[in-house]
């Protein structure tokens, strides 16, 4: 037993080293720093161990709590929409029709464009004077033009739109992979039994594509929680702090203000929230999924 396992461990070593150095060490270091007061621009204060003080500050920091709420709103809106749109796209792309290969490539374009570039594009689209968004909505009625990125009530929504446009195709890609492993025989059998398209979708496609849906949901949730570049380029957290997502707040604390300790605390908070969400997803959706598979 032991002898048969030893060579496997040796083969694992490179990846273990990689994970430890590039993943575990930074996470551990963030945890460690979150217990210190370390402000780069005030070196005479030194690096002082302050226990849970940063966590206490975080829990009572109204800006941080507002940021958390903003992040959660962002996740709650974008993730389901992206997965649903992705499912729609994947269903279309899974059918066979002329130009399918071409369309599959095109759908991925938004996702393939670097976020910084597409954020800049959306910033122009949402411009209150020359943006396409206003032209499409109001045409020549320039006095009715909106400034989505200037309105506290609309800015976050604008960023959500940009995110949904950009990453729905990523969800589609994952779900499409899930659709492709469903055996055709099931559909053929269902057709012979006289099942309607909806019944086929409801009783064959949906249960079998669930693992892919879960995966897409999980990836998108974690990614949406960490949204940064869209905010950085489009709004810098404004107006009135309405797009100041938690990750951007942490970035400002660590990088602009040099508050390494407090910034690390925010990073740890983001990490813990995404960990909890991931566990919750896997528990909720995963067990139900497993149960069904056992029944089948």
């Amino acid at each position, binding site marked *: 037993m032991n002898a048969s396992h030893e060579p496997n461990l040796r083969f694992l070593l490179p990846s273990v080293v990689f994970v430890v150095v590039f993943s575990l060490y930074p996470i551990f270091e963030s945890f460690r720093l979150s217990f210190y007061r370390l402000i780069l621009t005030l070196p005479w204060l030194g690096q002082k161990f302050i226990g849970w003080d940063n966590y206490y500050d975080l829990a009572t920091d109204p800006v941080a709590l507002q940021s958390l709420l903003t992040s959660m709103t962002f996740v709650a809106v974008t993730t389901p929409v992206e997965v649903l749109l992705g499912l729609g796209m994947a269903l279309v792309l899974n059918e066979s029709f002329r130009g399918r290969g071409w369309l599959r490539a095109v759908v991925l374009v938004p996702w393939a464009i670097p976020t910084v570039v597409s954020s800049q594009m959306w910033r122009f689209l949402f411009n*209150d004077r020359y943006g396409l968004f206003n032209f499409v909505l109001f045409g020549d009625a320039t006095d009715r033009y909106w*400034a989505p990125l*200037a*309105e506290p009530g609309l800015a976050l929504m604008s960023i959500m739109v940009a995110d949904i446009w950009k990453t729905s195709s990523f969800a589609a890609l994952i779900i499409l992979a899930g659709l492709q492993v469903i055996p055709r025989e099931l559909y053929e059998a269902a057709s012979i039994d006289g099942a309607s398209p909806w019944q086929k979708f409801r009783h064959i496609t949906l249960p079998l594509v669930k693992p892919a849906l879960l995966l897409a949901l999980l990836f998108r949730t974690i990614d949406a929680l960490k949204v940064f570049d869209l905010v950085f380029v489009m*709004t810098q957290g404004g*107006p009135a*702090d309405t797009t100041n997502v938690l990750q951007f707040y942490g970035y400002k604390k660590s990088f602009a*203000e040099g*508050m390494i300790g407090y910034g690390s605390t925010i990073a740890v908070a983001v990490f813990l929230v995404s960990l909890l969400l991931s566990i919750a997803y896997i528990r909720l959706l995963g067990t139900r999924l497993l149960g069904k598979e056992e029944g089948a």
Partner: protein
Amino acid sequence: MKRRSRMSSFQLKTLLAILAFCLIVSEAMAQSQLRFVTWRSEAAGVWEQLIADFETRHPGIKVVREIGPHSSTEFHDLVTQKLRNRDPEMDVFFMDVIWPGEFAAAGWASPLDEFFSAAQQKEFLSAPIEANRYRGRIYGVPLFVDAGMLYFRKDLLAKYHVAPPRTWPELVDQAKLILAQERDPYLTGYSAQFKQYEGLICNMMEFILSNGATLWDEPALRGTLHLAAAKEAVRFVRDQIVGAISHRGVLAYQEPESLAMFTQGKAVFHRNWPYAWEIANDPARSKVAGKVGIVPLPAFSGHQSAATLGGWQLGISRFSRNTRLAWQFVDFMTSSETQKRIALYTGRAPARKALHRDPDILKKNPQFQSQYETFLRAAPRPVTPVYQPLSNIMQRYFSSAIAIPDSNIDQLAALASRDMDRVLDLLRGRGAP
């Protein structure tokens, strides 16, 4: 056996020789190479020419230019990243006028007193010199200066027989009059920078200072935004500017968007830095070329006009291995001759006093004549190592106060002042600089 050993000793010698050669070359290169971290300039050719001239005059020194993002905030990230990592590669870097305090306190910028004497400093405008001083020592050499100015449409003001406004309420009244008469839905009264970013501080500071208030009390380390005069200025911006004569889009504008409004002929008044003059008067880039006037920003009645000091300096990294060479480069780049060339080719206002009376520069940039007074009186943002956290608190406050039409300014201002007090408290009882 013997033969083989002789061969290998020969190989060894060759190897050693190559190694030694490489060492010498790399050592020589490291000694004579300067890395200059800068942002992309609108007139890149001038910089390349300047660097080429420096290299001709100092044979053996090679200047490598590393170009970072143009936005001050992003450039700050790049430079501080290098400084935090104690990157010995970076020798000379650009500093925004608000950074010297932070860079000095963090031990990132070299004090330059041994090279940059008090007599030499006197040749520069005093406001930017003060902005480069931290606890009695000097950390940067000003290259060019910026100050907030009021641009206006000469033709529109003449059409309605009004003189450029001297007070903010006057500006609002004139804008209302012109907007009502022109009936152009595209036209806006006041185009400026009200997005939540550093530019918002510059704009709001001009309103607040010109109402006799301050951002905070630096000697006493106390927030002052909750005081009546400061709140009054903020309330004015919310109700009279953003809510009345400007369209709400200004809440998302930085310099380029606000300038575009003006150069497209869609703004009566425009607040910007001096560089906008050149663009606004260039027929190829502006529809209002020749119709542009420029005056100091208005004030509230009974108070002095205030212009936020901006501008860029050259600093030397504490981690540079070539401080002396780096100084030669800084000295060259901030010399009278260089600043003159920069002024002539880019329209940037020189930091040296004498150049503001230079006939060649005034011929090319006649507006410098009338702007000189503004440069002399321009107000630096207070020098402090905690500028960034204070700025973020103020950005949050100002943006919330002016973007939400029924914002509770009293409450928001009290919160901002309290948060700023907490940050300023970090500086109490500090030991060494």
